């Protein structure tokens, strides 16, 4: 009869524990990488919005961090795609999303919105750095002897300058205008990019926790929050490294110095820039945080008050199974604590960074609680599924969709940024550029 041959583990089984009545095909299909996916797109969108605050609305105070945020947002872009690829059962077919998009699906927008967005950010960077490209190009061309690295650099600049070597006043003015326009267009696209990530969840009518029209808005707000927080942290860290490296003369840690000479980096100046930028940005962080928390709480209160059929199981999930994750880790440590830290007078860089770290953690927990929490109960409202993040991988699946896969996604943007920074120095202070 039914031979119980060697165990065959189906997708999701390795990390799902079922309790009470759960349908046979129900597993936590959307695991850690789908938590990472809105988290990473959120960071992209948030970083871009931060940079646009300066470019479009002329928030002068954000001048220095704006350029950094722009480049970092570009470095994050390919990484927003990574979790999806790691999640797909058929990663090689990922291209189908671009080939035969089915627009009744929220995911199909991904390919097109993502590409549009990438083009906008790319173009904006091009305009911001065009003067620099041309100058570097001319400088390198003028050199009689070039090292291998410099030749490569020259080649790259030649390609990305697209032959536009005009540095006249008029041409530079045109660049400025274009940057403004692109940053302006970029904001709605960034919001769309992330709003639709919220729509992916909010529109799943089968899922009682996800289905709410507030989802896209909540996602956008928390995206901006996380993006700003990441900018504060990474900016502070990179500046710290730069200060340290500049003092010790460890130029390999200063990729732009490697590429463009040591003169760009000066310790005291760096310190004043850093503290000014970080504390200013923290103010914006507070504003967006208030918005995000209000919406999230509104959602929970509304569900409890209207208490439709699904509330019985949602209450069990929210107040019992996931209580620690939602109220302690997300709202307590991730929202309330940084709120207090940021509001106490006399904000220092260190405190801002600590608060931002907590905020990042809080937003991550929010994504977790939405994605995993939404799958914590059965479609029949009669049982639970507990998710166990695979920590030590024993096959490709538990690697991709486990702790290591997630860490890979988190570290990649920094690696990309390191190399990107050689070509387009994010910390360059030039009065003439943006």
């Amino acid at each position, binding site marked *: 009869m039914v031979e119980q041959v060697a165990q065959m583990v189906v*997708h999701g089984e390795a990390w799902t524990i079922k309790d009470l009545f759960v349908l046979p095909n129900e597993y936590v299909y959307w695991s850690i990488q789908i938590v990472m996916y809105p988290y990473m797109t959120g960071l992209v969108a948030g970083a871009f919005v931060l940079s646009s605050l300066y470019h479009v609305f002329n928030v002068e105070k954000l001048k220095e961090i704006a350029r950094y945020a722009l480049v970092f947002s570009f470095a994050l872009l390919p990484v927003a795609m990574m979790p999806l690829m790691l999640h797909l*059962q058929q990663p090689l077919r990922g291209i189908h999303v671009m080939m035969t998009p089915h627009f009744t699906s929220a995911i199909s927008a991904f390919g097109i919105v993502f590409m549009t967005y990438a083009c906008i950010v790319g173009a904006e960077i091009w305009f911001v750095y065009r003067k620099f490209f041309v100058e570097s190009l001319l400088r390198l061309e003028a050199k009689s002897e070039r090292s291998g690295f410099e030749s490569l650099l020259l080649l790259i600049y030649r390609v990305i300058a697209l032959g536009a070597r005009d540095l006249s006043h008029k041409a530079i003015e045109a660049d400025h205008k274009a940057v403004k326009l692109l940053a302006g267009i970029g904001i709605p696209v960034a919001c769309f990019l992330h709003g639709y990530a919220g729509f992916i969840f909010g529109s799943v009518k089968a899922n009682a926790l996800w289905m709410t029209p507030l989802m896209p808005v909540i996602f956008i707000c928390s995206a901006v929050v996380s993006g700003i927080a990441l900018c504060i942290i990474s900016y502070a860290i990179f500046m710290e490294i730069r200060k340290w490296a500049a003092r010790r003369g460890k130029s390999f840690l200063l990729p732009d110095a490697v590429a463009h000479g040591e003169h760009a980096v000066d310790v005291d100046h760096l310190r004043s820039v850093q503290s000014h930028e970080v504390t200013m940005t923290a103010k914006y962080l507070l504003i967006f945080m208030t918005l995000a928390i209000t919406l999230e709480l509104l959602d929970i209160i509304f569900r409890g008050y209207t208490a439709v059929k699904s509330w019985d199981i949602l209450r069990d999930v929210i107040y019992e199974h996931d209580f620690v994750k939602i109220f302690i880790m997300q709202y307590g440590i991730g929202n309330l604590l940084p709120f207090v830290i940021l509001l106490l007078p006399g904000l220092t860089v260190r405190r801002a960074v600590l608060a931002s770290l907590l905020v990042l953690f809080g937003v991550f927990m929010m994504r977790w609680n939405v994605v995993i929490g939404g799958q914590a109960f059965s479609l029949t409202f009669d049982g639970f599924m507990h998710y166990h993040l695979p920590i030590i991988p024993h096959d490709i699946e538990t690697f991709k969709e486990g702790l290591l896969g997630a860490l890979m996604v988190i570290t990649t943007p920094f690696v990309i940024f390191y190399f990107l920074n050689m070509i387009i120095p994010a910390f360059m202070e030039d009065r003439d550029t943006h």
Partner: protein
Amino acid sequence: MKRRDFLKNTAVFVSGVSISLSALEFIDPKELLAANPKLRWGFLVNTYKCVGCGFCVKACKIENDIPLEAHVTRTWVERYVMTKSGETIRDCPNGALAGYTSKLLDENASGMRLVPDEEITQAFFVPKLCNQCSTPACVQVCPVGATYQTGDGVVLVDRKWCIGCGYCIMGCPYGVRFFHPIERVADKCTFCYHRISKGGNTACAQACPFGARQIGNLRDPNDPVAKAVMNERVGVLRSEYGTKPNVYYIGLNEEVR
């Protein structure tokens, strides 16, 4: 940039995007009159007749190459036991592949549970399978057009085109979809499309000794399934999702979800 300019630019951009999107989308007037008037597959489940032997599950798995040892299945049978205290206990050990042979109810991590006979008010089995909805939520959410509805109303998955994102699995309110452990794409009940389109019966309906499962053509007034749907009190699962299921149940009650 002035604010007005900014708004103007945004408006231009948004309208530009929607135009380009609609150009890519091949909206078809046929969508409205799509329904094939001659043939619409439907299914009838009589829960009174089901004895929980699980032969339908076994037959389905063998017929459709779903590995028997994999803990996913295209069709399954649930057991409902209701007690005098008003409690409803459901279970479905491994989709009922080996049938129900014990009084112990499988509560997964909470262990086995025995309900004494004298506590039981009613108890019955409910076979489940894909509802082949008229407006399938799973098809709507497929980003690449890998899952679709045929002209005669069966929802299929294109195994060569599916990217395995799992959105359809999330979108289905009935939990009938899963990842095929070998093909690594979304999989679901096809109403045994290869059998019914050649005039055969589905593997599960053929395997059922008690006639609890029947497939038929809802558009044919002389078809036994169509007749039952018309003349008897039948219900569908979770109509609140607006998916318009085509699997009809005799003997449903409120506890069945």
